[in-house]
């Protein structure tokens, strides 16, 4: 299954990527699994997701928790806690 990944703010700065499309590996069931898998892609991703507990995620533009399932997602975004307003 192919899914679009987006990175914002310092997650984007550290991964060095704004967006990409990947094939979701079979073993990735949740947001948490996906972050674990991403960390192994190289030092930039390891650094970006080192403190994965502070990173927020959205599946198809809706905030989700780390235990949310990713099956069926079209777009998954990772970002720090929001600071607008």
């Amino acid at each position, binding site marked *: 299954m192919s899914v679009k990944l987006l990175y*914002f*703010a310092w997650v984007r700065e550290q991964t060095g990527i704004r967006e990409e499309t990947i094939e979701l590996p079979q073993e990735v069931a949740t947001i948490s699994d996906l972050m674990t898998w991403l960390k192994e892609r190289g030092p930039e991703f390891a650094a970006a997701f080192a403190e994965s507990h502070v990173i927020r995620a959205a599946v198809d533009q809706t*905030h989700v928790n780390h235990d949310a399932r990713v099956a069926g997602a079209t777009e998954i*975004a990772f970002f720090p*806690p*929001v*600071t*607008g307003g």
Partner: protein
Amino acid sequence: MIRVQENDFDIGAELARLTEGRSDLGAIVTFTGTVRQGAGDDKIDEMTLEHYPGMTEGELERVEAEARSRWPLAASLIVHRFGRLEPGDNIVLVITASAHRKAAFEAAEFLMDYLKTNAPFWKREVSGDKARWVEARASDDANAKRWDARGKAAE
């Protein structure tokens, strides 16, 4: 009504547009958030607001709909800017109008509290040759949470 834009907004013009020809509004509240220059170690030269196009609009619409389900608002508006901003510049505008002031005040505070914790914006402050991403404040989470327990508000 919500809008996400790079350009500045004109509070007087937005108010005029929202209230024109209306004689059912008794109370109109506006909140404007602006870039503070800060002082000492917190002094900034400029700021960049990054956002998540698409999700931003969706979240602002959701937050506005939630406010309108909780309070009897006759009109409401959220305008949020993104991009490069300088000290003194406008960031966000919230307008709420109702027959009575309590609803207008509460709804405006609610919108700001929810927007602060839900709308996907990130501030990056530049000071001289240093730049840093603004960290989320625990007080913003606490402010947003106080509405959860209340559910539907009075009046």
